[in-house]
């Protein structure tokens, strides 16, 4: 079953990948040191930015896991070509679990429900908090649930990785049935866990506000940023062998189409939430938007409508644009920035009535991102870019015909 081309094409990532990884790690460490200093000077600002950065990079990790499971269920060359990029991204979960610990240290700074009830002056809010902290939002409950999420994600990633590694060896058996059996329930589990995680970690910053589509907005955001990240990495790899031999315009076209679909789903969820809350116009719900549309935050919201949805949408309608990875990559980078801005717009207005950008919002993402990328590129370099002995590997290992 060994494809002939495996013998004369080295499937390992080019050496430059390790270099990029080392540089990312250095950048990460420098910014981590800066963040640490900042954490002592302005802990309140630090923890907000830290939660934001954590959620942004966690999104790339978990989104990659979701796309990978989607690939196992649907097959296709588009998924095979980025399979190991997604795999390397999802294997960063141990680092993210470690990076979750600092959030515990800042719990009372981030979450009003984690503060002593006596410290809350607003009578109405205190009564509400008394209820929710007893039933759901307690510190121990928060911790137990976080462990459950990470165990579930870790379990899925463990098996996906292990079975995928088997396909690097000539004696590999066909794992596609096992992958399918895990990926179907895995996607459902991911949908539930990420919804609960989004409620626990972000929505609960404002414990009096509820939106039922909130978890799904996070889910699609994560999948979108993971896909964009995969396109960026595939562009870097495309400069060198073996990716320059393997990546065909058809695969890039599919990535572009998926990007368009995910952007539209994101817009659909974001708009549905807005339409329902706007139509109801109830004090409990509309306050979330009142905060995010006033005091300068409205400009950020409008910016997101235009540059997270409208402009990328128009670009992605073009077929030649979607087929050319050297052009698509710029949009992918842009959308990753917009993902960050979207999270920023969801988290920051909880703490500040007026539009404000702190030093931490700029420094901390580089700290988390640098460390994360260092780990990612290390993972990417440690395995072949295509599992050569997978039953469906041949479709990408066939020579490119002009």
């Amino acid at each position, binding site marked *: 079953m060994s494809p002939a081309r495996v013998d004369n094409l080295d499937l390992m990532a080019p050496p430059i990948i390790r270099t990029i990884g080392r540089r990312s790690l250095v950048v990460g460490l420098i910014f981590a040191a800066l963040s640490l200093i900042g954490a002592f000077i302005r802990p309140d600002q630090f923890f907000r930015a830290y939660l934001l950065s954590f959620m942004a990079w966690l999104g790339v990790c978990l989104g990659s896991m979701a796309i990978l499971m989607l690939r196992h269920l649907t097959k296709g060359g588009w998924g095979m070509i980025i399979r190991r990029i997604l795999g390397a991204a999802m294997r960063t979960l141990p680092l993210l679990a470690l990076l979750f610990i600092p959030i515990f240290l800042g719990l009372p700074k981030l979450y009003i429900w984690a503060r002593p009830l006596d410290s809350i002056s607003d009578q109405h809010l205190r009564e509400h908090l008394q209820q929710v902290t007893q039933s759901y939002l307690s510190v121990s409950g928060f911790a137990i649930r976080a462990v459950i999420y990470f165990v579930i994600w870790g379990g899925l990633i463990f098996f996906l990785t292990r079975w995928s590694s088997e396909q690097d060896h000539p004696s590999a058996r066909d794992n596609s049935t096992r992958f399918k059996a895990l990926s179907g329930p895995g996607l459902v589990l991911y949908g539930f866990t990420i919804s609960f995680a989004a409620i626990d970690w972000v929505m609960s910053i404002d414990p009096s506000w509820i939106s039922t589509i909130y978890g799904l907005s996070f889910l699609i955001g994560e999948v979108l940023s993971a896909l964009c990240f995969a396109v960026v990495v595939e562009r870097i790899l495309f400069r060198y062998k073996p990716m320059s031999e393997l990546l065909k315009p058809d695969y890039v076209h599919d990535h572009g189409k998926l990007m368009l679909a995910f952007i539209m789903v994101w817009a659909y969820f974001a708009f549905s939430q*807005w*339409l329902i809350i706007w*139509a109801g*116009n109830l004090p409990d719900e509309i306050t979330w938007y009142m905060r995010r549309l006033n005091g300068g935050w409205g400009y950020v919201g409008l910016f997101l409508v235009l540059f997270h949805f409208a402009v990328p949408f128009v670009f992605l*309608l073009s*077929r030649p644009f979607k087929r050319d990875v050297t052009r698509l990559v710029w949009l992918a980078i842009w959308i990753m920035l917009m993902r960050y801005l979207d999270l920023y717009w969801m988290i920051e207005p909880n703490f500040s009535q007026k539009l404000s950008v702190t030093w931490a919002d700029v420094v901390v993402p580089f700290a988390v991102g640098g460390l994360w990328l260092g780990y990612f590129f290390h993972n990417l370099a440690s395995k072949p870019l295509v599992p050569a002995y997978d039953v469906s590997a041949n479709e990408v290992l066939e020579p490119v015909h002009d």
Partner: protein
Amino acid sequence: MRRAGTYGFMAEFDSPTSLVAAAHRVQQAGYRKVDAYSPFPIEGLAEAVGFHRDEMPLVVLIGGLIGGITGYAMQYWMSVISYPINVGGKPYHSWPAFIIVTFEMTILFAGISAVLGMLALNGLPMPYHPVFNVPRFAFATKDRFFLIVFSSDPKYSSIETRRFLESLSPRSIAEVPD
């Protein structure tokens, strides 16, 4: 009867690969008015016969825009001009409520214009087409692959073109009566 003339020369091939190869050769020889027929879509064939762009995306875009504008204008007219009702104290012109129907109308009109535009640009329905004058052309829907050089091509000549197509070693060659 229409005037007796020639529509072009048709060559028959056995495989998609030989059809694409022949199409490349015909392009290189300088023929521009060329078309190909096959029982199923072949990767790269459209480019090989010199077909690069079509007007379909434009038709669909215009259809979509018309649908969107119609949808919005219809709701505006209904809720602001024709029958204004105060709903929850919101302004008559409440754009968020209009978005869904506007979106659906965009999709509907874009879809309809895609179907109608495809038919119109293909010149369908077409009760008569000269290629069917060649009896063997019936195999184009089964397992044969055909290439035609139209007589409207500036390089077309009843002797030279036939000779050239013969050099591509097709299974058969036929002159297509108009």
